């Protein structure tokens, strides 16, 4: 077996952090090589080095035994390496064939596009892989699975022989997943190599020949899938950095604040039931696509399309009652996408914090500026937000500080229940510590908190109770202090679920 691509001794540092440390990684013809690891383990850094998005500090890359330089994404493309990202790079209003040939169209009689020839060649490729898709359909009419196929075909038709797929199944239905796996098998038989980044053990053990596990920038396991087990992979994924951390003991015996019973939305989540008590922190966890954000949306009144019941303070909530009603009753929500759904980027820090308090700070129709200033200054101090002044525009703050401001909106004494979606996504270690502290303080004050987090260490650090989900169904429940990290990861990754 000759290695078609061979990365040797790759190293990369970002300031003081060693993101990649002497990493060896290779691919052979016609095989799927699964790359796994927790968030921050170095998978995407390694793939960015391969794709020419970032430069490496050390190491060499060989293609078919020849040393190559990949300094820009165009170099990777020229060598035959294509990346399929989770966000598609297609043009909705062009056809399938139009997208595949975009930028290198076929022409005849001078300037005129040879549409039939382009469609014919695309059809030929689709047939070769047993795919049923009309090359003349506009891409806007396709579902996520079909769009992914178009992306892959585009890569194959530009002579790529190595396809990197980053969590390719996260947005796919069961049917589309089946079709994707069949497509991958056909690609393998045609000699295409695939690097498959995923956390789903059944997928990895279903289609990959080789599995490599990364942790803290290093390769910790690289083995034929036939010679290892799902459990062994999970064990090597987890680090030991949190051993010895003890969460303070808390008595949780308050009233039930929120109660969810047999909540079901077909294809998204199934039969979800749980209670959250005063002062309790309940964490829902799983892989992306596990359904937890959708559950949170139903609770906050943003979705009416579910069956089952949600009770809050003893009263059953009307489906889809809207966020205004939820906030009035003392609920709060911090979204996972603060730049899109959290902040008002053009406004100052002050105005962003004050927004939910305006209604309560009006005297005779006039906003009480002094009261607002007091509230704002207190919120900035309480959350240790770093800003040059309250009048600073929020868009100039770091991600961590923006997130703290999203939190500070809900430091309202009337708050009883708070939903946090990925509370520390994309923010630095120091801001994380501040945010964990705020969450603990809110919980001590008696606020019931529901968190969605994909980061196992964060789950264990914050939770009083954990529910793991796999593809929308509850797998297991853990209560403090009996958190078994390996078991939890196995549950999240679908270990033991059918391939």
């Amino acid at each position: 077996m000759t290695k078609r691509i061979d990365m040797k001794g790759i190293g990369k540092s970002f300031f003081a952090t060693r993101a990649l440390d002497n990493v060896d990684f290779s691919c052979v013809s016609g095989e799927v090589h699964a790359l796994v690891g927790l968030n921050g383990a170095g998978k995407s850094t390694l793939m960015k080095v391969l794709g020419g998005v970032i430069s490496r500090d050390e190491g060499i890359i060989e293609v078919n035994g020849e040393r190559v330089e990949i300094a820009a994404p165009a170099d990777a493309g020229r060598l035959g390496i294509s990346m399929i990202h989770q966000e598609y790079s297609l043009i909705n209003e062009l056809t399938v064939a139009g997208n595949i040939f975009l930028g290198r169209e076929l022409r005849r009689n001078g300037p005129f596009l040879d549409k039939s020839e382009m469609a014919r060649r695309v059809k030929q490729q689709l047939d070769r892989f047993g795919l049923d898709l009309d090359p003349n359909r506009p891409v806007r009419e396709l579902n996520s699975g079909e769009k992914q196929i178009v992306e892959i075909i585009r890569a194959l038709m530009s002579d790529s022989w190595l396809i990197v797929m980053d969590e390719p199944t996260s947005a796919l239905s069961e049917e589309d997943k089946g079709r994707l796996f069949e497509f991958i098998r056909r690609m393998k038989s045609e000699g295409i190599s695939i690097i498959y980044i995923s956390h789903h053990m059944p997928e990895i053990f279903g289609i990959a020949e080789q599995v490599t596990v990364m942790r803290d920038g290093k390769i910790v396991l690289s083995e034929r899938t036939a010679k290892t087990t799902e459990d062994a992979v999970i064990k090597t994924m987890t680090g030991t950095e949190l051993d010895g951390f003890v969460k303070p003991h808390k008595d949780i015996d308050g009233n039930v604040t929120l109660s969810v019973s047999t909540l079901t939305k077909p294809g998204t989540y199934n039969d979800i039931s749980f209670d959250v008590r005063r002062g309790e922190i309940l964490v829902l966890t799983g892989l992306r696509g596990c359904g937890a954000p959708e559950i949170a949306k139903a609770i906050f009144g943003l979705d009416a399309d579910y069956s089952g019941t949600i009770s809050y303070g003893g009263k059953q909530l009307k489906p889809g009652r809207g966020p205004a009603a939820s906030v009035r009753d003392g609920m709060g929500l911090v979204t996972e996408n603060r730049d899109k759904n959290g902040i008002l980027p053009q406004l100052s820090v002050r105005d962003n914090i004050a927004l939910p308090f305006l209604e309560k700070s009006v005297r005779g129709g006039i906003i009480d500026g002094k009261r607002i200033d007091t509230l704002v200054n207190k919120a900035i101090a309480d959350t240790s937000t770093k800003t040059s002044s309250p009048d600073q525009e929020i868009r100039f703050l770091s991600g961590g500080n923006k997130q703290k401001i999203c939190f500070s909106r809900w430091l309202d004494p009337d708050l009883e229940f708070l939903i946090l979606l990925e509370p520390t996504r994309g923010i630095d270690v120091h801001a994380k510590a501040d945010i964990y502290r705020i969450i603990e303080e809110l919980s001590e004050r008696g606020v019931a908190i529901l968190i969605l987090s994909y980061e196992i260490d964060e789950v264990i650090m914050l939770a009083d109770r954990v529910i793991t989900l796999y593809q929308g169904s509850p797998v297991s429940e853990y209560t403090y202090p009996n958190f078994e990290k390996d078991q939890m990861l196995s549950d999240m990754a679908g270990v033991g679920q059918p391939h």
Partner: protein
Amino acid sequence: MTNTARIFREHNIVFVTIALCIVFYMVSPRFLSVDNMSAISRQIVPIGLIALGQFFVVVSGNIDLSMGMGSVLFAIVLGVFFGLTGGVAVGIVAVIVCSLALGFFNGVLVAKLKLPAFIVTLSTLFMAQGLSGLIIPRGQQIFLIGDFFRFVGAGKFMGLYWSFLFLIALFALAYVVYNHTRWGAYVVAIGNSEENAKLAGINVDRVKIGIFMFSALCSGFAGLVLSSRMGFVQPGLDGNGLLLDGIAAIIIGGTLILGGRGTIGGAFWGLLFIGIINNALNLLNVVDVWHQVFKGAVILAALAINWMLWQSRQADAH
């Protein structure tokens, strides 16, 4: 969805326009007379030229507000060069050169300096307006007399105005360019996602500059046709009214104001729609102020329908 419903949804402007014709015919049978149809065909030519140029700009996700006052300026350029030399060809070459220069200026500012097209072309709109008044003081005019202007303004071939035939030919050409050349696909791609278009290896800046040069050239032609029909040029022409009619025509014809989507056929029907309303309201002696109000209401209704259809298609796709 049934096929009939789909046809109605995608070609609703055709049905709406035909319905409007029937209503106007019932109010005034003279509306459908050969003379009146012929008048409409001539009236829509300048608007059609603006609509055509604007179409590519809007599909690419931009806007060119300078097209209307640009036409007025280019008409004056024509008048001055014709007046000074007496040569028609000199005047036309001057119009082409000046319009391409303005388009290049707009395009470079938008593509290279990344300035919003709205701001850039609003600025050049004012410049064009100012320059027009500078070249010919308000209240004065230059007459355009000669066979060529009579031919452009009123010449007919088999009962149809030459200018209308020219417009049809230009729409046909635009149809081919939009649907069957790389350039057309790139305009759509840029309007959908500039980032993705760049990733596919398209020279986005060059396409954008080309789009603005084409729209300015169209406004040059519009100035030529408009002034030939009137027989004189002067700075007081309502260039912005022309611009707004052109924008209304393509939006009514289903072009998405956000960019990325539109059809040449739709733009043409939108043009007929605007032309018919302008003509019928004159024909029915609607008082000018009410004329504008009514026109606004009809455009709003047509746009609301289009927007809702677009939304419902979005919903279908999910």
